[in-house]
C-alpha cells in the first residue's frame, strides 16, 4: 500500500436520492454535489455548514451508510469497499444510537460480536479496557444505557467505535445534544484519544467554535458543495467566500453585538432543485456579473480554496 496516499480521499462524490412523498410522486434530493476532500493520518478535518447543506449525508457516505451516486471514496488509495481500513461513526444522539436492551459491555463489543470469534470473557475484558479508556468505571459495564447521563452515553458510543481499532472516526455533531460543561469533557476525551491512538477525525458540526478548537483543516459546505476550504484557523479567522462570511458573522459571540442579517440571507434554498450558476447567488451580498456561471473551487493562496470568481489571489486588507 502506498504510504503517501491520504487516509481518506473523496473525489467528486455525489449523493442523490429520490424521496417518494405526497401525492405528486417523487422528487430528487441533491444532497451532495461533487465533493472532493482528503484526511491525512492523525489529522482532523472539520466539515461545517447549516442544516440541509449535506454534511451529515457526506459523513454517512464516508462510512458507507448511504450509497454514492458518482465519484469515489478511497482509503489509503484503495476503494472503500475493498479496503481493510476501519472507519467508525459517532452520532449526535447517544440516546437513539445505543440499543436500550443491551448492557454496556455488550454494546461496546457489539462490533466484535458481529465479527465473531471472541469468547464472552474476552469480550468482557475488552469492554472493560475500552470503558476505562473513555473514562467510565469498570463496574459500570453491567449497567444499561438508561442509567447513564447524555455525556456518559456518548462515552459509551465512543468506546463502541474504538472496539474495532478504527483509523478514522466520523464525528457527526458529537456534542450537539450535550450541555456545554459536558461538551467540554467529550471534546477533551476526543483530543486525548486522538493523541494516544493517532486517530483521524472527520468532525461534522454546525458549531464553528468547536471546529476551530478541534480541527486542523476545515471545509465549509453549502448546498452539497464545498465553498471554501483551508487551514481551520485561517478560514475561520479570515473567511473569503461570501457564504463563510455570512455564516461567521451570524455566530453568537461575546465580543460582538448582535449581527443584523438581511432576511433573504437567512433562508437556505431547497436541495430539490439546484440553482444554476453559483448556488449562493440569490443570498449573496456581493453577487455580480459572472455569478450566473457555475463556480469552481479554486486555490487562492496557500492551502486555501474558494468557490467564488469574485475572490482573487491576494489577501484583502483585514476588515
Amino acid at each position, binding site marked *: 500500500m502506498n504510504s503517501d496516499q491520504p487516509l481518506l480521499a473523496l473525489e467528486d462524490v455525489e449523493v442523490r436520492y429520490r424521496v417518494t412523498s405526497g401525492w405528486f410522486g417523487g422528487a430528487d434530493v441533491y444532497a451532495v454535489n461533487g465533493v472532493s476532500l482528503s484526511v491525512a493520518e492523525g489529522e482532523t478535518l472539520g466539515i461545517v455548514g*447549516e*442544516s440541509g447543506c449535506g454534511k451529515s449525508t457526506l459523513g454517512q457516505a464516508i462510512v458507507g451508510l448511504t450509497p454514492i451516486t458518482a465519484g469515489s471514496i478511497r482509503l489509503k488509495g484503495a476503494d472503500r469497499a475493498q479496503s481493510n481500513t476501519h472507519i467508525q461513526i459517532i452520532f449526535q444522539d447517544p440516546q437513539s444510537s445505543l440499543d436500550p436492551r443491551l448492557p454496556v459491555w455488550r454494546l461496546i463489543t457489539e462490533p466484535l460480536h458481529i465479527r465473531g470469534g471472541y469468547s464472552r470473557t474476552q469480550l468482557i475484558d475488552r469492554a472493560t479496557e475500552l470503558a476505562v479508556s473513555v473514562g467510565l468505571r469498570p463496574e459500570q459495564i453491567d449497567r444499561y444505557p438508561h442509567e447513564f*447521563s447524555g455525556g456518559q452515553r456518548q462515552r459509551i458510543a465512543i468506546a463502541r467505535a474504538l472496539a474495532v481499532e478504527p483509523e478514522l472516526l466520523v464525528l457527526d455533531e458529537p456534542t450537539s445534544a450535550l*450541555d*456545554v*460543561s459536558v*461538551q*467540554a*469533557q467529550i*471534546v*477533551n476525551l476526543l*483530543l*486525548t484519544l486522538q493523541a494516544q491512538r493517532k486517530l483521524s477525525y472527520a468532525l461534522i458540526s*454546525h*458549531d*464553528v*467554535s*468547536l471546529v*476551530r*478548537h*478541534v480541527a486542523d483543516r476545515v471545509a465549509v459546505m453549502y448546498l452539497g458543495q464545498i465553498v471554501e476550504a483551508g487551514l*481551520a*484557523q485561517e478560514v475561520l479567522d479570515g473567511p473569503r467566500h461570501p457564504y463563510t462570511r*455570512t*455564516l461567521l*458573522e*451570524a*455566530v*453568537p*459571540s*461575546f465580543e*460582538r*453585538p*448582535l*449581527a*443584523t*442579517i438581511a*432576511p*433573504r*440571507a*437567512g*433562508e*437556505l434554498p431547497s436541495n430539490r432543485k439546484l440553482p444554476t450558476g453559483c448556488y449562493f447567488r440569490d443570498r449573496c451580498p456581493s453577487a455580480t456579473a459572472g455569478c450566473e456561471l457555475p463556480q469552481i473551487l479554486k486555490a487562492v493562496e496557500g492551502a486555501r480554496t474558494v468557490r467564488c470568481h469574485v475572490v482573487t489571489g491576494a489577501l484583502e486588507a483585514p476588515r
Partner: protein
Amino acid sequence: MSAQRGDILLDIDDLSLEFRTFRGAVKALNGISIKVRAGEIVGVVGESGCGKSVTMMAAMRLLPKGSARITGGAVRLFGSDPMKLSERELQHVRGRQVSTIFQEPMNALNPTRRIGEQVIEVIRRHQRLSNAAARQKAIGLLRDMLISEPERIMQAYPFELSGGMRQRVLIAMAFSCEPKLIIADEPTTALDVTVQALILSLIRQKAVSTGTAVVFISHDMAVVSQLCDRLYVLYAGRVAESGTTASVLAAPAHPYTRALIRCLPGLAAPKQPLEQIPGTLPDMLNPPPGCLFRARCREADERCVEVPPLSAIDPSRRAACWRRIEETEAA
C-alpha cells in the same frame, strides 16, 4: 393598567417547587428569585435541569396541576398571584399581557389550518376587531417580521414554511396583542445560526419599539450576552448570579458562571484541553444541604455547607457564593 418603564411586571420571590414522581419528590426549584421590569430584556441562562423553563412555566401557571407543587415562595405577575386567579382571569393575563414563544415552532402551530386564520384568531380573541381589521393587523405584524409576501404566507399551511419562517410567524403572534411581557423559551435553539441571528434581531427591534419586556431563556451564554440587558444564571433550581450582562461577562462572580464561560471552545487555544466542570448535578430527589454547586466547586470550603444567600457584591450584581460575600464584606 399601563406599565411604566421600571415597573415590576413579574416578581418571582424565593420560589420553591417540586415534581412528584414514583421515586419521590424532585426538588426542581429551591428558592428562585427573578424580577422583570417593564421594557427590559432579561436572560435566564443555565444547563439542562437548572429550572429555567420550569420557573417561567410556574409563573405562567402552565405546569400540570397534579404533578407540580409549589412548596415555598410567591409569584406576582402584574401585581396579582397567578395561582389564585380564576381560569378566566388567567386567560386574560396569558395572551393579552404575557405571551410565550417556544422552541419548536411546528408544535406551536395547528398543522391543519392556514397561518392567516391562526394569527387572526389570536388577535380577535383578545381584541375587539373586525375580521378585516384583524387581517390588516396580521399582515402588518408579519411585515414587521421582514416576511416579504405576507399575503401569500397568510394563505400557507405551517408545513409549507421553513423553521425560521414559522418562528417569525409565532413571534408576530406573540407581539400581536401588544403584551407587556414576552417569555421566549429557547426560541432559536432549533434554528441555524444565520436564521437565529435574524430572529434575535427581530425580537430585539420589536421589543425596543413596543416597549415590551422579554424574558429570554437559553442555554447559550453567547446568545444571551448579545441580546439581554440583564441576566440570571441558574444552577440546580437556584440563582447563582444575576446582574447586568456586561458586568457578569466581564468578571463572572460565581464559580459556576466562571466555569460555564470558560468551558466554551471559542475562548481556549486550539487543541488545548477545555476547562470542564467535574461531576454532575446533585440528586434533586435528595439535594445535599448548603450550596448545591459545592461538590463541583474548586473554591468550596466549610462555609459552603450553609446555603449562601443571593447577595449584592457590587451595585450591578448579586451572587450566591460565600467567597464573594466575604470578599465584599472585607472590602
